C-alpha cells in the first residue's frame, strides 16, 4: 500500500468526495428540520424545503405590494452596488496610500505607525462618530466598508511594494526613471495583480461590514432584509439569503481570480494562490 499522502483520487472520485459534505449537510438539515417540525409544526428555526420554496417565490418572484418591485432583486442590486463601490474606493485609496507608504521612506516613517494603529480600531465601536461624519445615507454604508477594508489593503500593499526586488528599482533608476515615472511604470503595474489578490482576501471582511452597515441604516439590501426578518426569526427567508450571499461571494471571488489571470498574464501568483 502506498502512503496516504501519495494516494491521489481520480477525477470522478474527487468530484464525488467534493460533493459529499454538501449532501451530508443537506440530509442532516432535512432530518433535523423534520424532527423539529414533527414536534412543533410552527417551528421557525429549521423550515422545511417547501417553506424555502414559498419564501423564495414570495421574495424573488412576486412583486412587492408596497413598491411593485421584486424585493430580492432590489436587495441584491443595492448590496452589490454598495459592496462594489466600497471595495473600489478602498482599492483606489489603498493604491494611493499603500504605494507611497511602501516606496517613499519619508512617507513610511510618517504614516506607517499611524496606519498600523488605525487598522486595529474596531469600526463598529465608533459608529456614532462615523455616522456623524458620513451621514446616514448610502455614503455611510460605503464608508463603513471603506473604513473596515482600506487599512487591511493598505498594509498588504505596503508590504508588497516593499517586496519588489531592490534590483528592479535600481535598474529602473539607471534607465533614467524618476521616483514618479518609476511608480508609474514599474511599481504600479507590478502591484496591480497583487491588489486583486488582496481584494479577494479581504472580500469576506467587506461583506461583514456591508451586512452590519445595512443592519443599522438602510431601506433595502441583503443585510437589511436579514436584519428585518430576524425579529420574526423568519429562517425561511434568512437561510436562502445566506445561501445567496455565499454564492455571490463565491462568484465574485471566482471572477476576480479569472480577471487577474486575464488582465495580468505574466502574473502567476494568482494561479499559485489557489
Amino acid at each position, binding site marked *: 500500500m502506498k502512503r496516504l499522502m501519495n494516494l491521489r483520487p481520480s477525477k470522478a472520485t474527487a468530484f464525488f468526495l467534493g460533493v459529499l459534505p454538501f449532501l451530508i449537510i443537506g440530509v442532516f438539515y432535512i432530518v433535523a428540520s423534520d424532527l423539529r417540525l414533527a414536534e412543533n409544526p410552527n417551528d*421557525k428555526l429549521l423550515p422545511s424545503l417547501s417553506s424555502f420554496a414559498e419564501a423564495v417565490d414570495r421574495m424573488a418572484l412576486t412583486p412587492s405590494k*408596497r413598491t411593485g418591485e421584486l424585493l430580492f432583486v432590489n436587495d441584491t442590486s443595492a448590496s452589490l452596488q454598495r459592496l462594489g463601490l466600497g471595495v473600489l474606493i478602498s482599492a483606489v485609496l489603498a493604491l494611493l496610500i499603500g504605494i507611497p507608504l511602501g516606496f517613499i521612506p519619508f512617507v513610511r516613517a510618517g504614516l506607517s505607525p499611524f496606519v498600523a494603529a488605525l487598522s486595529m480600531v474596531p469600526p463598529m465601536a465608533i*459608529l456614532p462618530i462615523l455616522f456623524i461624519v458620513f451621514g*446616514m445615507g448610502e455614503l455611510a454604508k460605503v464608508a463603513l466598508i471603506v473604513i473596515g477594508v482600506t487599512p487591511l489593503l493598505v498594509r498588504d500593499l505596503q508590504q508588497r511594494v516593499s517586496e519588489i526586488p531592490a534590483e528592479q528599482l535600481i535598474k529602473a533608476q539607471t534607465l533614467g526613471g524618476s521616483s514618479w515615472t518609476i511608480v508609474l511604470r514599474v511599481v504600479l503595474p507590478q502591484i496591480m495583480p497583487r491588489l486583486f489578490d488582496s481584494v479577494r482576501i479581504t472580500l469576506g471582511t467587506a461583506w461583514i461590514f456591508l451586512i452590519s452597515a445595512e443592519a*443599522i*441604516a*438602510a431601506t433595502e439590501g441583503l443585510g437589511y432584509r436579514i436584519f428585518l426578518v430576524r425579529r*420574526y426569526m423568519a429562517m425561511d427567508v434568512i437561510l436562502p439569503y445566506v445561501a445567496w450571499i455565499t454564492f455571490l461571494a463565491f462568484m465574485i471571488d471566482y471572477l476576480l481570480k479569472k480577471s487577474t489571470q486575464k488582465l495580468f498574464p505574466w502574473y502567476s501568483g494568482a494561479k499559485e494562490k489557489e
Partner: protein
Amino acid sequence: TKDKFQVAWTIYVGWMPWDYAQQEGIVSKWAEKYGIEIELVQVNDYIESINQYSAGKFDGCVMTNMDALTIPAASGVDSSALIMGDYSNGNDGVILKNKKSMSEVKGLNVNLVELSVSHYLLARGLESVGLSEKDVTVVNTSDADMVAAYSSDEVTAMTTWNPQLSEILTNNKSANLVYDSSKIPGEIIDMLVVNTETLKDNPKLAKALTGAWFEVMSLMKKGDTKALTMMAEASGTDLAGYKSQLDSTMMFYDPSEALKFAQSSALPATMKKVSEFSFDHGILGEGAPNAEFIGMEFPNGDIYGDKKNVKLRFIDTYVKMAAEGQL
C-alpha cells in the same frame, strides 16, 4: 430659518404610520402646504437614530419617553415631544419559561435590552411583586435576537417588545406572559421628538408633521386595509400580524385623545418614575447629582426637576391645533 428638515424613524408598530405617510406622499403634501420640505429617514438601529438626533444630524426623531429623557435631554439637547402617538398597552412584556407568575422570576437571568423601556418594565414588574432588581441578573441582549435567544436553553426569562414578544408567545408553549405594559398603562409612550430650538424657529415643521400624522391616523381608524397592509409589509410581517401588534398598542387615532393624554396629570407622575429609574441606573448623565437634575416641562406649564435645566418639554400646542382643525 431653514426649509428642509430631516426626521428619523425606526421600524416599530407605533411608528409605521410615518413610513406610510412618507411613501404615499402625505408628508410631502403637508410640507408643501407649509412651504417646506420634510424627509423621513428610516434608520434600522433605533439607538443610532437617537444618537444621531442628539448629535444634531436630524431635526426630529421617534423615540420613547424614557429614551427622550436619557439620551437627547441628558446630552443637553433641548427637545420637545411634539406628538405622543400611542402608549404601549401590552406591547412590552415579561416572559418566563415554564413558570407562571411574576414572583417566580427571583434568581433568574433575564434577557433584555439593558437600560431600555424593557428594563423599566421589568423594574416595575418586580416592584409589583415586592422584588427589586437585585433579585435577578439582567443579561443585555440585542432586540433583534430575542426570538432566537428564547429557543436556547440558558434563557429562562426575558423582557421584550413586539413583534418579538408575540412571536415568542405564539410559537412556544413554554412561554408565559407574566407581566406586561397593560399593567402600567401610559408609562411607555411612543412619541415624535423635535429639537426645541428648531421648533421655535420653524413652527411650520411641527404643523406639517402633526397634520400628516393625524391624516394617517384617520385612515387607520377607518381600518384602511391598503394602508395597514403597507405598514405590515414594511415592518416585515403581514396584515394579521400587524393588526395583532396594534391590538396591544393604545393608538390615539383622534387628536382629541392625544390631547387628553398630554394634558393628563398621569404624565408628570410617570415621568417622575422614569427619571428616578434612570438616575438609579446612572443614565441621566454622570454629572447628575439626583433624579431632578434634568428639568421637564409639561403642557400645563408645570416643571418637574431643575427649572434652570429644562431639556425635555411635553407640548400640546400642535395636537391642540389638530384637534381644533386649525392645521
